[in-house]
């Protein structure tokens, strides 16, 4: 057998039927995660056709996208104010009960953003195929799983058959040499990668992140990197599992235990790209050269170092983007005044992200011109942060500390940025209107977001970390 990549190994072991010239492969799905926004139409299809959810043991639902982040609404002391969100929450509660799907519901201690709770529970595991009706499903690839987002019709396919019809994607190796410098994080790395690849550079490909800089990352950092694979157009991003992965998973509530753990470990150790295996494309980067990054435009590929300047010229889209952002060509990013800082989302709302933010905020105050929202990625992250006293650091600094959910990442639950306002956000999309109609989003790392909150201006976090 020729040398195979990690992706090819996972793909091959999940082919129920291999692809032919006339038919796509039937790919088996080990784990189906679902949430309130992209599932209702799929449940309707099952109802219309009289079909059950075939493998409820491989299906896990949660509520995250449109859920409130204030306690009283979340825990039912008062009704969810946004009527449309309330309907969607109730629809998933009804559907999960009717179809026997496990739901980590509003009051569950295990609830959180779907891409944060999978790893936390230990259901995200190396070598699995994982899908969800959400493009940031690529996050789970950090464990060496093949994980990708699907549309609602496909959500129905997986519910009914535990399979998907798929053409085999191509492979792209992103080789990262060197080490990230102090004050530079996984978010900066992935923004730099997207800057290099462009927002469609990964279309049709599954990325494998490799090299010393990737191996040195923690699991939480690897998740940040894989999370944004889709922002380069890639279906999925993967990192080969190693000791860091196994240490993270051991003793997680739903990870294999005892003898099953030993057996799993043996299988997982074989999940790496063999020497001599070929990728369709390769991109090489040196981590040492990467600086803290920030976006200046309306897609994640429009990005420069915090110390950099907006490009001097560009096409019509460039100018439209700058007009939307209220920026001029050639301007420096550092020093631009801001209105809102959002720390949250499946990209950067895990415990390590919150620790970074606290590192900057401890003993400092959020500038009075800035509203800062800190939204943990899950209820577990919230509990852990509170056990360490991080919440007190945020509150003392003048930031708002909330219940978990997607919140201001996409503004479906009413947490939005007002039109024309500038937001520095640790989330993953700076599209027009993403955080609210007319909102102007700049994506950055938790450190950069926190530093900018303190000064009220775009700030290089290294200036405050000295």
């Amino acid at each position: 057998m020729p040398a195979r990549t990690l992706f090819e190994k996972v793909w091959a072991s999940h082919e129920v039927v291999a692809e032919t010239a006339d038919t796509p492969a039937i790919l088996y799905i080990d784990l189906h995660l679902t949430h309130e926004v992209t599932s209702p139409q799929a449940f309707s299809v099952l109802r219309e056709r009289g079909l059950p959810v075939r493998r409820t043991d491989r299906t896990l639902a949660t509520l995250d996208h449109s859920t409130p982040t204030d306690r009283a609404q979340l825990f039912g002391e008062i009704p969810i104010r946004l009527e449309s969100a309330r309907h969607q929450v109730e629809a998933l509660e009804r559907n999960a009960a009717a179809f026997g799907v496990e739901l980590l519901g509003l009051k569950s201690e295990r609830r959180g953003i779907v891409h944060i709770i999978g790893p936390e529970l230990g259901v995200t595991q190396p070598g699995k195929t994982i899908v969800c009706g959400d493009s940031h499903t690529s996050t789970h690839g950090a464990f060496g799983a093949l994980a990708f987002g699907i549309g609602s019709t496909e959500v129905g396919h997986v519910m009914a058959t535990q399979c998907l019809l798929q053409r085999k994607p191509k492979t792209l190796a992103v080789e990262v040499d060197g080490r990230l410098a102090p004050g530079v994080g996984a978010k900066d790395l992935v923004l730099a990668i997207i800057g290099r690849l462009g927002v469609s550079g990964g279309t049709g490909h599954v990325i494998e992140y490799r090299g010393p800089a990737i191996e040195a990352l923690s699991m939480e950092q690897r998740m940040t990197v894989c999370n944004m694979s889709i922002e380069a157009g890639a279906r999925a991003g993967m990192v080969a599992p190693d000791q860091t992965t196994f240490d993270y998973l051991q003793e997680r509530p739903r990870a294999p235990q005892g003898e099953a753990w030993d057996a799993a470990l043996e299988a997982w150790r074989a999940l790496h790209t063999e020497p001599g295996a070929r990728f369709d494309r390769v991109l090489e980067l040196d981590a040492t050269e990467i600086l803290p990054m920030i976006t200046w435009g309306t897609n994640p590929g429009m990005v420069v170092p915090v110390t950099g300047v907006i490009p001097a010229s560009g096409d019509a889209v460039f100018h439209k983007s700058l007009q939307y952002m209220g920026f001029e060509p050639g301007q420096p990013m550092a020093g631009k005044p801001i209105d809102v800082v959002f720390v949250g989302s499946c990209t950067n709302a895990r415990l390590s992200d919150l620790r970074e933010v606290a590192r900057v905020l401890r003993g400092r105050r959020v500038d009075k011109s800035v509203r800062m929202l800190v939204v943990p990625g899950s209820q577990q992250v919230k509990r852990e942060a509170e056990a360490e006293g991080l919440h007190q650091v945020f509150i003392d600094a003048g930031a708002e500390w909330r219940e978990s959910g997607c919140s201001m990442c996409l503004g479906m639950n009413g947490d939005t940025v007002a039109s024309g306002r500038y937001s520095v956000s640790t989330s993953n999309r700076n599209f027009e209107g993403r955080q609210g109609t007319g909102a102007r989003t700049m994506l950055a790392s938790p450190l950069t977001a926190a530093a900018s909150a303190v000064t009220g201006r775009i700030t290089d976090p290294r200036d405050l970390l000295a």
Partner: protein
Amino acid sequence: MDSVTTITSRTLVMASTNIDTDQIIPARFLTTTTRDGLGKALFADWRYDAEGQPRPDFLLNTPEAVGRSVLVAGRNFGCGSSREHAPWALVDFGFRAVISTEIADIFRSNALKNGLVPVIVDEQAHAWLLEHPGAEVTVDVERCVLSLPDQREVSFPLENFARYCLLNGVDELGFLLSRLPAIEEYEQRERK
């Protein structure tokens, strides 16, 4: 799904590159639990002003937009969120085909499941289409050919299975369900 064989229409042109699904339909419209009636939310943030009134200069609000079913868009159409609400909104508005040089993966897959034909053409044909808004074109799914008004024919890629499903109105779920015995056998073999 209804079968789709040929689509003939004058084009509407939105030349911007990287039109993401948040633009096609903003998140606040995703709180629906059905797939109907989303056409009115299509491109909402570009189409309506702060008071919810149609902006007269936006393409979809112009008299030319009425009855057109082919959209020509800049490179990398449909990137971003996996929301199938994007093709639902386009189809509900009346579109049956989207032409670009590049169409994002998940959007493309979602489009095909809703009878919206993703037509990927070369730079040259694309440039011509951008320069000639309103040109009458025909998308021929059977032959995978886009016909331009000057009789020119431009072929586009469509993998066999997708083409078969469009032409015959086959729904993929039915196909998958017919393969349940193979799926069960796989589960037993792999102890899943």
